[in-house]
Each structure stands twice: as C-alpha cells, then as structure tokens.
C-alpha cells in the first residue's frame, strides 16, 4: 500500500490551507475548500502498469482519491463501460464519438456512486455513524444504498415532488427519507441548518471536499479506456457544476503525472433550459451566475443556485469549450435517440447531455472530425415519467398466429 499523497484542504479563493477534517468552508473568506495533493510523491510510482494490474473499480486510482488506506465503503464501485457510439456517429455526422456509460454504475445506476463511496469511506474514517445528504434524487439513492451496505444510519432529504423511481430507489434501502415541500434549493437551505445542528456526515456539506473528488474517477476511467489519452472534447451534464470541474481536474492530474499527453481537451457543459444558470453565464460571456427558479423535467439537474457554477464556467472558458441548454421536448427526443441508436436507456440528464451535444455539433461549437466523449450519468428506469407518454405501447393481440400474421403483414414483414 502506497502512502497517501493528500496534503491538505485548501481554500479555492484565498489559498489558506487546513488540516484534513470534516469541514468545508474557509474560516477567513468563506470560500470553498478543496483537497490538494503532493503529486511529486507519486513520481515514478503511479504508473499505467500499476493501475492496469488492479481490479476494475474506481479504486484503481486510489492514490488520487482522498482516503487513507483501503476504501471501507463502495469497494466495488465504478469502472463503467466506455462505448464507441457507431450508430450515433452516423446520425450526428461525427467521426469519433464515445459514451461513458455511468447509467450502469454500481450499485445505484448513477455516477453518484463514485462520490458517495469516497464520502462515506471518509465519514467512516472520521468516525461518523450517521450520514446524510441533500439530493435531487440520485445522490439520495446512492447514499441510502452504500450506507446500508456499510452498516451506517442514513438520512436523505429530497424535494417532495421527485420521480417515483428516485423516491423508491432510495426508500427501499431502509433510509430515513424526508421529502421537503419546495425546490432543491429549499432542501439545500434546510440541510445547511440541519448540518450545523446534528453531528452527522453530510456528504455534500461537511464532507463535501472529499465527496466531490470522487467524480474524478469518471475522468480517469475515460482516459484509460481510450488507451491512455484524453478526448479532444468532453460533454458533461451540470447541476451544481461539480462534475464538470472534476472531469477537468482529472485530466490535468493525469497530464501532471505523465500518464497521458496534453491533448488540449475542451470541456462542454449541458443543462436544461428550464434550469440553465451556468450555460446562460457562459453564453452571456460573464462569470456572474444568476440564480433561477428551476422548472424542468431534468430534475436531477435542477439546481437553481449552483455552488460550483462559477468554477464550472471558468473551466469551460479556459479549456476552450462551450455550454448549451435544450428544452424539455428536446430532452425527451434525445433520450429516445440514445436508446434507439445505442441501446442505452439514460435518465433525463443523459437526454440533456446528448441533446446539447447534438445542438453544439449542429452549431459548429463541437467539431465533427475530432474525438468527443459524452458523459451519460444516470439511468432511465429512474425517470420513466419523462418518456412514458412518448414511447410505442405494445400492440395487444390474442395468442393466435393468425392475428400475428396480420400485424406482420402490416409491418411489411416477408
């Protein structure tokens, strides 16, 4: 086991460093804290060969994840398929398109299993017995499941009007699930008060700096699966904007460690128009994020006041990427397109990602002749309401060959 290279928590605004503790804002300037590492300590030690020799989970990159020793929660999580999307390439008229398919992430079918296994492993390390989160849905399910497996108590807070699949997908794990009358931003506000009062590990409050690092594993996997190189373009769905910044961080780290060459990867953000504060800021050419009242079927992305909006905006601009947003109808159309073309049933956020990519390909923001990776981050079975009225219903017949012959003939089957 190699030693941990985590150096400290560091304020993203003023640079003040803090010891590794369950804390998340700078005492001096209230800026967000981020985990920083001593990368030099890995020089010559963290090699492609070493990584390849390890089990296919997100923990094969454990040196770059902020836990001590081995993970105690979610040891099997991550390492989802990277799929070459040949059919979509034809449909969209692009040369090289891949889908990072986190809609099959273990165990709860969204990329949140990555962040949660880091957050809960860290919570166990800190000695917490109860874990909690504010969630737009996927996080709730992931916290509930991973906590159950780890023998931790959990409380999850969600907006009361979430999709059935998300509510059930958390409740089944025996978590204490609380529906809040209001939007995610109200849930968020309540949780900030709860977190201050109860001594729990709140994955997206007091253990947030550790939590957020888990998203980097998605980026590491993409680079390894591409044969140790970064894509030219990567499209990421955005709620708080955290995943977007961490995908960028993962690429920079691999470059720094000499694991890949600098490909000048451009990062693109995707949102639904009904909740698009970050994409709006990018399109308006400002770095001010104006909070909005979210109203979209892409509920997992419905954060009107995105905590990492400013940083996501900066990553997008500095990397030479762009941001886009699409209507709810376009989200549904893209969910169907992804399913029909590639056999992948993604949730609304996946529709947002593909739909925005399509729009950016058509507008020329995404070039057609360079490699593009789409991050598909959640599973369609959890947001069935979104497409239920838009799919073909079964044609019901008697169990009679005659009746089927009629159908087959109508379909033009020979």
């Amino acid at each position, binding site marked *: 086991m190699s030693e941990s290279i985590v150096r400290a928590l560091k304020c993203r605004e003023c640079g003040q460093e803090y010891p590794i503790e369950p804390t998340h804002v700078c005492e001096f300037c209230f800026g967000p804290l981020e985990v920083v590492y001593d990368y030099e300590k890995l020089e010559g030690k963290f090699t492609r060969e070493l990584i390849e020799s390890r089990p296919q989970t997100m923990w094969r990159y454990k040196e770059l994840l902020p836990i001590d020793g081995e993970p105690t929660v979610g040891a099997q999580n991550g390492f989802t398929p990277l799929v070459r999307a040949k059919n979509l390439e034809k449909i969209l008229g692009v040369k090289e398109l891949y889908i990072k398919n986190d809609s099959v992430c273990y165990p709860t079918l969204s990329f949140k299993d990555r962040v949660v296994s880091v957050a809960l492993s860290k919570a166990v390390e800190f000695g917490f017995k109860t874990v909690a989160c504010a969630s737009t849905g996927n996080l709730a399910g992931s916290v509930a499941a991973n906590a159950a497996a780890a023998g931790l108590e959990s409380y999850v807070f969600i907006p009361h009007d979430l999709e059935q699949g998300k509510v059930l997908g958390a409740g089944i794990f025996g978590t204490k699930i609380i529906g809040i009358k209001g939007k995610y931003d109200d849930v968020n506000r309540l949780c900030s008060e709860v977190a201050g009062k109860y001594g729990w590990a709140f994955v997206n409050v007091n253990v*947030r700096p550790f939590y957020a690092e888990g998203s980097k594993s998605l980026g590491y996997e993409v680079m390894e699966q591409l044969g140790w190189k970064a894509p030219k373009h990567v499209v990421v769905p955005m709620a*708080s904007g955290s995943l977007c910044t961490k995908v960028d961080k993962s690429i920079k780290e691999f470059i720094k460690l000499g694991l890949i060459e600098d490909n000048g990867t451009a990062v693109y953000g995707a949102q639904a128009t009904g909740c698009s504060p970050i994409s709006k800021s990018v399109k308006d050419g400002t770095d001010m994020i104006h909070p909005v009242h979210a109203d979209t079927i892409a509920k997992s992305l419905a*954060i009107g006041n995105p905590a990492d909006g400013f940083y996501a905006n900066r990553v997008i601009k500095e990397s030479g990427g762009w941001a886009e947003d699409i209507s709810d109808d376009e989200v549904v159309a893209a969910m169907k397109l992804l399913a029909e073309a590639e056999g992948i049933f993604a949730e609304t956020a996946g529709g947002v990602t593909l739909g925005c990519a399509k729009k950016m390909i058509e507008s020329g923001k995404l070039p057609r002749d360079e490699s593009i990776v789409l991050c598909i981050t959640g599973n369609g079975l959890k947001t069935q309401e979104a497409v239920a009225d838009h799919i073909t219903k079964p044609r019901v017949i008697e169990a009679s060959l005659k009746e089927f012959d009629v159908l087959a003939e109508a379909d033009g089957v020979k």
Partner: protein
Amino acid sequence: MKLRIYLTFDEATVREPIIWKLAKEFDVITNIRTAEVKDHMGLVGLELEGESDVVEASVKWLESQGVHVEPIEQNVIEG
C-alpha cells in the same frame, strides 16, 4: 453564538449602510469576511457573534430591511 451568513443586497439596498445600522441596533459583533459590491448588487460574507436570541433577531431585522440572508452552507453542491 457565531453565525456565518451571506447577505445579498439588491439595487434598493446596495447603497445603504445596513451593517453599520445593525451594529447600532443590536448587541452583536459583525465581522465582514468577504464582500463584492457592484452597481446593482452586493454580496457580503458576514460573521455575527452574540447571544443566540440577539443573533436571531438581527437576522430577522436584516431581512426586514430587504436584505436576502442565507447560511453560507447554502452554497453546497450536488443533486
């Protein structure tokens, strides 16, 4: 108790000396940790220290002045 909050000022309130008034009105220690002021809006990170009921009353008072008050943890991430 110590409370850490963000105050958002809009066009109507951004020019008022509200934090000064607050300290005159209530027995609280105000400690500004960060501030950004533009023509149309202002954002101030403030630490308030005092007896809990006084701190709570000061927050109510700030809101009554048209200032938007939120706990700094409000800026948490995720979904």
